[in-house]
C-alpha cells in the first residue's frame, strides 16, 4: 500500500473540511442545526451547563445573601415598627386606664363637700424609716400642710411638707402617723396608728366595745385633718386584753404601694 505524502494528507484534510463546511451549509438550508454546531454544542453544553450551573448557584447565593441582608434589614425595621406600635398601644392603654382612674377621682371630687384637687405621685421616701409619697401639686394650687389626701379606695395620708410645686404626704401607714377613726357599726372611736406596711392598729378602743372582723373603719373628723366619714380600712382582728383597751388590727383600704393619682382635700371651704 502506498504511503500518503504529507502534501496529500494536508490536502485531504482541507478537502474533507471543505466538504464538511459545504454539507453544513446545506444542512442549514433544511432548517436543521448545523452538525458542526451541534457537535460543538454537544461538546460545549456539558461544560456550559456546569459553568452556568455554578454561576447560577453563586448568583443564587449572592442574591440570596443580598435578599437576606435586605430581609434582615427589613425585619429589623419591622421589629422596630412593631415595638413602636406596641409602645403606642401600651401608652394608649395606660392613657385609657388613667382616664378611667381620673374619671373616678373626678366623680369622687364632685361628691365631696370640700374642694379637692387631683395630684400625681412622683416619688417615694428617700429613706427606709418613713412611709411617704411626693406629689406634684403644692402651694401654688392650695395644697398646704395637714391637707388630707385620699384615693378612690380610701384615706391615703396627709400633707406634711408643701413647696410651691410639690408636697410630701405622710402615709397613713407611717409609724409616726395618727388619725381619729370610728368603727362603722359599733361607733367606737379610737386613734389609728400606722404599722409601717398595709396594716395598722387602733388604740383606745375599750374592751366593752363589740368589734367585728370585716367592720369598716371610718375617719371620725375629730383630728381636724380628715373629714368625717372617709373609709380608712377594715377590721382584721380584735383581741381583748386584761387592760381596759383591746388590740384592734385593721387593713388599710387604699392600695398604698400602687398609688398613682390621689385627691388632695383643701383646707378652704368649697366656694
Amino acid at each position: 500500500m502506498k504511503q500518503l505524502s504529507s502534501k496529500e494528507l494536508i490536502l485531504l484534510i482541507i478537502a474533507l473540511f471543505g466538504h464538511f463546511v459545504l454539507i453544513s451549509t446545506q444542512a442549514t438550508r433544511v432548517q436543521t442545526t448545523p452538525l458542526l454546531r451541534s457537535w460543538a454544542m454537544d461538546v460545549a453544553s456539558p461544560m456550559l451547563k456546569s459553568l452556568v450551573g455554578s454561576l447560577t448557584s453563586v448568583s443564587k447565593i449572592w442574591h440570596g445573601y443580598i435578599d437576606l441582608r435586605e430581609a434582615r434589614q427589613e425585619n429589623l425595621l419591622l421589629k422596630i415598627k412593631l415595638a413602636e406600635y406596641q409602645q403606642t398601644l401600651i401608652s394608649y392603654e395606660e392613657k385609657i386606664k388613667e382616664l378611667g382612674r381620673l374619671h373616678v377621682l373626678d366623680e369622687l371630687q364632685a361628691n365631696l363637700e370640700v374642694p379637692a384637687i387631683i395630684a400625681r405621685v412622683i416619688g417615694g421616701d428617700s429613706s427606709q424609716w418613713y412611709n411617704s409619697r411626693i406629689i406634684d401639686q403644692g402651694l401654688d394650687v392650695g395644697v398646704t400642710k395637714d391637707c388630707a389626701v385620699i384615693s378612690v379606695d380610701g384615706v391615703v395620708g396627709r400633707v406634711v411638707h408643701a413647696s410651691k410645686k410639690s408636697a410630701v404626704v405622710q402615709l397613713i401607714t407611717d409609724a409616726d402617723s395618727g388619725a381619729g377613726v370610728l368603727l362603722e357599726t359599733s361607733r367606737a372611736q379610737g386613734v389609728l396608728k400606722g404599722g409601717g406596711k398595709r396594716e395598722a392598729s387602733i388604740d383606745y378602743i375599750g374592751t366593752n366595745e363589740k368589734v367585728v372582723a370585716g367592720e369598716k373603719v371610718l375617719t371620725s373628723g375629730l383630728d381636724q385633718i380628715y373629714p368625717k366619714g372617709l373609709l380608712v380600712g377594715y377590721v382584721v382582728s380584735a383581741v381583748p386584753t386584761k387592760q381596759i383597751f383591746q388590740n384592734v388590727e385593721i387593713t388599710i383600704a387604699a392600695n398604698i404601694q400602687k398609688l398613682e393619682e390621689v385627691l388632695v382635700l383643701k383646707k378652704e371651704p368649697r366656694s
Partner: protein
Amino acid sequence: MVNFLRSFSVLLIILLMVPLQVVLTWYFPRLAMLDLPMIAVIYLTIAKESLFWTIFSGSAIGFLQDSLSLSALGMNGFTKISIGCLAYLANSIFAIDRVMTRFGLLFISSILATLLFLLLRIMVLNRNEVIEGGRLLMSGIVNALVGLPLFYLFDKIVRPPNE
C-alpha cells in the same frame, strides 16, 4: 478647668443620687434599705481625701434627702457627715482602693449609719425604735453590693485616664 469640670460633674451625679433614690423606692419599695446618697458621700470622701468635701457633700445631700422625706431636717446630713468622717479616717489608715476594703467600708458604714440614724430618732425625736439585726445586715450587704459598681463608675468619671 478640666479638674473643675470633673469635680462639678461628680457633684452633679452625686446630687442626682437623691432623686434617683426617691424614684427607686417608689417603684421598688424593697430597695428602701439602699442608701445611694450615703454611698456617694463615702466615695467623695475617699476620692477627694478632704474633709471639706465630706462636709459639703454630706450637708447638701442630707438636706436634699430630708427635704424629700418625713425626717427632720438635718438628720440625714448629720448621719452622712459622721459616716463620711469615719470613712475619711479609715482611708487615712487603710488604702481604700481594693474591692474587699471598699466592700468592708461600705458594709460597716451602712450599718453604722443605720444605727446612728436610729439613735438620733430615739434620743432627739423621742421615738421608740426596734433594731432588727437581720434587716441591719441585709441593708449593709445591699449597700456594699450596689456601692462597689458605683465606686467603679465614679472612678471612671473622677480620675484622669493616666492615673
